[in-house]
């Protein structure tokens, strides 16, 4: 054993103490509260997505002629195919929900403030990448929702002034949905976006480690108690519990509500009702409320404002240090998001 240890140490010159130091950073007490673990949840679900995604990619075929059939084959014929596909679908839903909840927690606790502004921006990029992965994901099935969702999505992009038509061409690989569109979506979904997410996650976690976790003190904490606890094994156990609960939840959802297969894409038949996945309900309702370009530009503006929020908030707080503006802005934003989502979900058209 000693021989192997020495051999390894020669090649990976890290000492035990260094490893402990790296992995065992003291964790602030507030992380004992489960809702502060939401940041790890999307990362955990991302790993699930990578694993199930690789398994699905073994059978998936990205040409329009074969895509739907290959998904049908996965769902109905491949051993455990229905389970893997259902877990993939539910993990995507939960991942997006977890990202949004994590972002809300960071926002309302002001954890994006100096010196963590850049990490908030990285987080915003992660949110956009996650949503894009969701969009390209359900486009791959090549059911009616996939085809028309992609077409509508591309048409929305087209309304952006100046670069709109180029964006549409880039997305669809042509002026309209064609043989190259689906392979492009597949490459985005299974290669470009996951790699981008891995890179951004790396930066996100590195910045987190460099700056440390924002520390909060709650009123019920006793002042004489230690303010930190060990990452290993204490916090790791908490993450393990969250992970196991998630896996059980995914298994239950996948078995009770397995992923279904809608009608195959038919470019000649526009469905009476086109609705994207729930996480785009906000955008969809917004687009219905305002005319084309205005809706797209305002949406872009809102996204850009969110991206720059730590800087804007810094400015506001410089002039009005006691201002609670960001909290109220956050409450309005959450109510608007929930309201628009419920509105879109509740109506038929």
């Amino acid at each position, binding site marked *: 054993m000693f021989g192997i240890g020495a051999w390894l140490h020669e090649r990976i010159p890290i000492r035990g103490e260094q490893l402990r130091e790296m992995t065992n950073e003291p964790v602030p007490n507030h992380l004992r509260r489960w809702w502060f673990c939401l940041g790890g949840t999307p990362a955990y679900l991302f790993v699930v997505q990578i694993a199930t995604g690789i398994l699905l990619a073994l059978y998936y075929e990205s040409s329009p002629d074969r895509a739907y059939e290959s998904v049908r084959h996965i769902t109905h014929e491949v051993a455990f195919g229905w389970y893997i596909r259902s877990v993939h679908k539910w993990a995507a839903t939960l991942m997006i929900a977890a990202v949004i909840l994590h972002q809300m927690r960071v926002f309302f606790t002001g954890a994006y403030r100096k010196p963590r502004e850049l990490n908030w921006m990285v987080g915003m990029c992660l949110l956009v990448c996650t949503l894009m992965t969701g969009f390209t994901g359900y486009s791959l099935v090549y059911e009616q929702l996939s085809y028309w969702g992609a077409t509508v999505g591309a048409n929305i992009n087209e309304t952006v002034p100046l670069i709109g038509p180029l964006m549409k061409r880039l997305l669809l690989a042509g002026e309209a949905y064609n043989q190259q569109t689906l392979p492009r979506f597949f490459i985005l979904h299974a290669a470009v976006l996951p790699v981008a997410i891995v890179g951004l996650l790396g930066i996100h976690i590195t910045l987190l480690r460099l700056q440390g976790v924002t520390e909060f003190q709650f009123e019920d904490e006793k002042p004489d108690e230690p303010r930190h606890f060990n990452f290993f094994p204490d916090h790791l156990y908490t993450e393990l*519990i969250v992970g196991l609960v998630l896996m059980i939840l995914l*298994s239950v959802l996948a078995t009770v509500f397995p992923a279904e297969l809608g009608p195959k894409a038919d470019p000649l038949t526009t469905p009476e009702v086109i609705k994207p996945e729930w996480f785009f309900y906000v955008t969809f309702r917004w687009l219905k409320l305002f005319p084309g370009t205005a809706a797209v530009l305002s949406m872009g503006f809102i996204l850009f404002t969110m991206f720059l929020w730590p800087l804007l908030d810094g400015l506001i707080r410089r002039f009005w240090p006691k201002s609670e503006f960001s909290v109220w802005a956050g409450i309005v934003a959450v109510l608007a998001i929930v309201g628009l989502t419920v509105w879109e979900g509740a109506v038929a058209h």
Partner: protein
Amino acid sequence: MQLTTKRSIIGVLGILFLISLIFVQWMEVVRKQEEAGLAKPHIAVPASSQACVDCHRQAQPGIVAHWEGSTHARKGVGCVECHQAEEGDADVFAHFGQNIATIVTPRDCSKCHQKEALEFAHSHHSKGGNILASLDNFLAETVEGHRAPFNPHGPTPGFDVQSVNGMASAFSGCQQCHGSKVAFQSTDGGAINVDDLKPGPDGKPTNSEAVAKIARNQDQKPLFHAATWPNTGIGRLNMDGSRGSCSACHSRHDFSPRRARQPENCGKCHLGPDHPQKEIYEESKHGVAYRDLREQMNLDAESWVLGKDYNAAPTCATCHMSANTREPATHDPGERISWTNRPPISLRMDTDAEHKIVTATDPVEREKQIADTAEQKRQRMKNGCSHCHTPDYINGFYKQYDDLVVLYNEKFAKPGMQIMNELLKQGLRTKTDFDEEIEWTWFYLWHHEGRRARHGASMMAPDYTHWHGMFEVAERFYIHLIPQAREIAKHAAEHGKAEQAKAVNEVIDALLARPEHKWFKEGAEGQTEAIRKAMQERYGQGGGEKK
């Protein structure tokens, strides 16, 4: 929280996760067993149908057992979903708290199977009920039977026969394939059908007087006219105005796709002396391959696409209706058929927007009316053929088929029709069909033998094309039809109708003077010699002694 507590929670959650994976494994095993036919599929009886299932399991266990084997049962479609009726429907009755109807019509099926119902409505299948006013039905209702009940000749020992139902042959014969005009018993002893109910666009009757006259039992269940129900004829005329019966092919109550894919299913009606498609198929290479390779046909598969799910052999459904990798499935077999061989003279399947065959002869007028050409239909069929045959092979086959149809049309059908029309024109036969020998002769020629020849060629069955087909057509034409027409003319000439007889004889003479009929009048010694010589050269023997 203490670390030991966390460890315990992790342990418990770990076990729960493992249990969830075992559950997944169990689901997978059950799924595979169901697929392999080793286990009964999981059935979830919808709450609204639970009472039906519980009661009918005792009363008609077969119905429930069949339903349990259906895709409907697996997908949660129960009794009520299909049999549900609304207040105002002609056939609605309250049955243990549910408003239901006995007959499920294509209108009912279309609630879920809209595309299929629409295709079916365009098909010739859905118009099968048109036979009720046709020559064929005249045979059953008048020639074979009688349109009104009549008195028996004498007693039938052991069976009380007060009157004879003259329509029995039509009801039990024609209408079981073509479809009946479903009727209720009327309180005045008559029958109430779609013509009386006058359904509106929503299928509900508009004639409340007729509805009020529907006879009902003590539970208010409407009583069917026994002659018209049960019936699963494919062109059934339903009381809601819809036409057809989906269960003609998708037998209730399991609605098995497997069965609909097999030729035996079509063979309920497509067989016999007048259109032996089933027997023709069995004789063809297609049928022979199917019989041999049936186990490789993947008949149980949910998706059944030629070129993807199976390649072993085609069945009727494969070529005429089912999906292949180049053509979607259709419930209108006519979408792939380029000739109709049903009438005395075959017609090209150029159809108008209403899916009716365009009969105009003027090319400009035809082009104006045609919405879907025979050639387009043929191309759809070829898209299926091309999974197993090369384009040259397919085109070669169609050339042979076209040639046979045209030969039949031109050598026998059109001349035969000309003779029959001339006899009628000259008053030498009555307008009533089947009351003269020559009318039976002509009917045999086109309706039985002529169809056999054409259908035989359409599905590559040489024996049906020749011996059961063209050989018998020729015999019927030369040995029966021509002599009978001559005999009628002779009889007419002897009874003061010399002009009329002359006209008929002139038509026959002109026909027989044509090169293709010359042999019959002038003999064909030269031709038989030539054939014998060719045989001698090719095979070294003379093809039999000269008689």
